[in-house]
């Protein structure tokens, strides 16, 4: 067993515990330094795990409890490159946010660093675990850390609302998840994902299995923020301190979707293989709905953090559609997309953070033209927006190319145009905000945008002493550059597809985890994107720029154009906005509705 496997969880946990035990006795900067060191070490080790698992999974049995006669006695980590790379993403984002947050949280001593480190360990544990209950434990650990971090600005009302809504909906999501786990355990007597798959070999999808899978999905989709489980997300991300948003938006949401793939392939793909079409339809449908809703709602925001929160929801939809294609290519494409997108959104949030620090404001309209003094943040906005649009061959392009091709493979030719429309909405909105703030373009007022409390109030009060600009701009630009540049890794698309195919080959995966049979190394299939992804990428980029201009100068369009479609859109838009009421009881009702609808649809299509 590879000794590195437990470290991405153990290092941050031990550092957090150590900081708590000694925090009262150490110097002021110890928490910053220890946090950065631990998060960087986690990133490096997770990257090493990617490199070590290129040919076969690294299976690690905690306590040394290797399975006996195919029965897992303990808890296993099952490391493959697609999972390890997300652990590395989490580590990198936490590192960047620690650098950005240098001296940001002096007021609360070590608490911020401790919670962020435990949060990091929870994310790496969640993504690497091969045991369904262990995933639940880390799911809860993520939630518990975030409750405190989101509510950081206790003196204001909105953060408390955001934290309460987050806590209650995610707890209900965790309950659905645990119900599903209990049902699966009752049927199979197993908690290891691969062993569950082996026991279920040859089973028909009966009521228990369909509902259990539906509940597990619902639980993970609450965390991911898919429609109609997404309401908490915009409230929470809009109020969390920027360094926390970077990680929430950059990686945590996407982990819920990764988990969908991680439970489907080893445990359930055999049961549902005959009805995969129905499941695909449900997941992709939910994904498209989420993508379009997120993009539309993002357009109506003027608070930058809330705007980026809805951008996050829009992209969660794209990823759900990608994972939901239930192909190796779709899974590979989604992971690469998540990776590039995570870095870009992280960079964008940090750019917003720079604005908030400089101008004490995070409102697009009030900041109009005031960003000229922070050209680096403007550069981050421009590059980030173009990267989100999937400008070929940068950033998210490789991932979206794989998803587009995969959609064609399963006959979903209608999917790429819809996903392109969603990324036009999200990227166009980001570019609109960037152009208004940094170039002073567009109108000074736009009554159709939601008015929110000042975001600046939710950040810590003025930081004592000057923070040198590189500490602010450095992390933002570094994240953007990495996000754009990842696409140039040679042979990335082909290799990622090969890694995803290891998920698909359930018998080989089972033999590897439960009996230690190392499969022969496979060669990576070459991936030639063909012309279509470039066309979609070009349409998306041009469309995003055009949509940004539309957002800026909409009110200068000829009155005729404004009146007709504008009138038509106003009613539904107002109703859509009204649904995001900010009231926790509504949200829990929606979660209940979503769980019922999702499970019910699965029951209709899978049986």
């Amino acid at each position, binding site marked *: *067993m590879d000794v590195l496997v*437990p470290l991405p969880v*153990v290092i941050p*946990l*031990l550092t*957090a*515990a*150590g900081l*708590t*035990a000694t*925090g*009262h*006795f150490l110097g002021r900067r110890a928490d910053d330094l220890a946090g950065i060191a631990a998060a960087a070490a986690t990133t490096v080790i997770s990257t090493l795990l990617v490199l070590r698992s290129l040919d076969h999974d690294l299976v690690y*049995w*905690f*306590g*040394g*409890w290797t399975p*006996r006669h195919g*029965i897992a006695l303990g*808890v296993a980590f099952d490391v493959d490159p697609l999972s390890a790379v997300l652990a590395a993403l989490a580590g990198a984002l936490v590192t960047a946010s620690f650098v950005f947050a240098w001296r940001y949280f002096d007021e*609360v001593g070590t608490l*911020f660093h*401790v919670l962020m480190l*435990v*949060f990091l360990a*929870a994310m790496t544990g969640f993504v690497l675990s091969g045991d369904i*209950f*262990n995933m639940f*434990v880390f799911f*809860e*650990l993520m939630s*518990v*850390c975030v*409750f*405190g*971090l989101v*509510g*950081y600005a*206790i003196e204001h009302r909105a953060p408390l609302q955001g*934290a309460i809504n987050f806590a209650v909906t995610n707890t209900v999501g965790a309950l659905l998840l645990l*119900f599903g786990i209990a*049902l699966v*355990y*009752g*049927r*199979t007597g197993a*908690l290891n994902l691969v062993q569950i798959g082996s026991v279920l070999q040859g089973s028909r999808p009966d*009521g228990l*299995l369909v509902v259990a899978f539906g509940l597990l999905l619902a639980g993970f989709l609450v965390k991911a923020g898919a429609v109609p489980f997404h309401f908490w997300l915009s409230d929470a991300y809009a109020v969390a301190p920027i360094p926390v948003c970077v990680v929430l938006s950059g990686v945590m949401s996407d982990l819920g979707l990764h988990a969908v793939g991680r439970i489907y392939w080893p445990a359930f793909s055999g049961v549902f293989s005959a009805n995969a079409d129905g499941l695909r339809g449900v997941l992709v449908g939910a994904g498209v709905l989420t993508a379009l809703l997120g993009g539309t709602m993002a357009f109506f925001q003027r608070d930058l953090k809330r705007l980026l929160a809805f951008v996050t929801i829009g992209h969660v939809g794209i990823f759900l559609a990608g994972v939901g294609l239930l192909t190796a290519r779709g899974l590979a494409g989604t992971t690469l997309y998540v990776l590039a997108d995570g870095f870009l959104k992280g960079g964008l949030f940090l750019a917003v953070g720079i604005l908030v620090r400089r101008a004490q404001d995070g409102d697009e309209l009030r900041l109009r033209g005031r960003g000229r003094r922070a050209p680096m943040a403007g550069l981050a906005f421009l590059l980030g927006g173009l990267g989100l649009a999937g400008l070929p061959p940068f950033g998210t392009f490789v991932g979206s190319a794989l998803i587009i091709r995969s959609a064609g493979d399963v006959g979903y030719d209608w999917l790429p145009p819809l996903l392109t429309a969603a990324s036009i909405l999200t990227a166009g909105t980001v570019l609109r905000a960037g152009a208004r703030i940094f170039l002073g373009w567009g109108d000074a007022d736009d009554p159709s945008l939601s008015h929110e409390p000042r975001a600046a109030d939710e950040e810590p009060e003025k930081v004592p002493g000057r923070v040198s600009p590189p500490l602010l701009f450095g992390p933002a630009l570094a994240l953007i550059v990495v996000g754009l540049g990842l696409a140039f890794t040679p042979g990335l698309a082909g290799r990622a597809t090969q890694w995803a195919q290891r998920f698909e080959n359930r018998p080989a995966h089972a033999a590897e985890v439960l009996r230690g049979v190392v499969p022969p190394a496979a060669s990576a299939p070459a991936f030639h994107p063909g012309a279509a992804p470039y066309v979609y990428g070009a349409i998306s980029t041009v469309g995003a720029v055009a949509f940004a201009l539309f957002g800026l100068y909409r009110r200068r369009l000829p009155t005729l154009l404004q009146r007709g479609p504008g009138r038509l859109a106003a009613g539904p838009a107002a109703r859509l906005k009204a*649904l995001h*009421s900010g*009231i926790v009881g509504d949200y829990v*009702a*929606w979660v*209940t*509705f979503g769980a019922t609808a999702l*499970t*019910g649809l699965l*029951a209709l299509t899978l049986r």
Partner: protein
Amino acid sequence: MTRQTRIGLFAVSAAGLAALLLWAVAGLPDFGHYRGPYGKVLNSVAVGERHATNVVAAVTFDYRGFDTLGEEFILFASVMGVALLLRHERGERERLTTRIHSDAVRLGGAGFAAGLLALGLYVVAHGYLTPGGGFQGGVVLASAFALVYLAGDYRSYRALAPIPAIDFAEGAGAGGYAVVGVVSLLLGSAFLHNFGPLGTTGTLASAGSIPFLNIASALEVSAAFLLLFTEFLEELAVTPGDG
């Protein structure tokens, strides 16, 4: 969404969800006829392999000890979160009320607290033999301290349980659990591999490194609940100030 709409949406959804759940549980084995292999195997091998008579403790601290590491840190993180959320702003001043209680109340409370303390220690110590263990015992221990508050006053409570000391115990407990795992790594085996001598079944000196994990979690849990009680009780002693 009005309240009526919300309740209507919920009623319809919950009825549907309940129906689906009932459909699902009908597929479970009949109550009392569970045959799952996992628990059965553990029941038959755990006592022999681990010399711990409480198989639940063997599962929590050994076979699935890694879950418990996560659980320790859930508690740890939540207490840190509560400390973050209930931190006091500048301008809030402490209202140091000294409650007047009769000596009888104090004496009785102290006696009761001492009894709870002994009970907590017993529950902790015998966790891997009989029901109980670090978690349950830890909560009892913390309750014993909280009783000092109820019987006495906030000041003597704070003197008994100063925050830096509890923080230290909290970090040491949670970290200690992970350190036991790291010791296994340093010994060349898997993280959290049970390395101690297994000893004689049914005595306190049995079950290898389980007792260490048990003590670490007792420390963590009692510190965590103590901090939790302190944070909430402190709210009682503080009034919002002018600034």
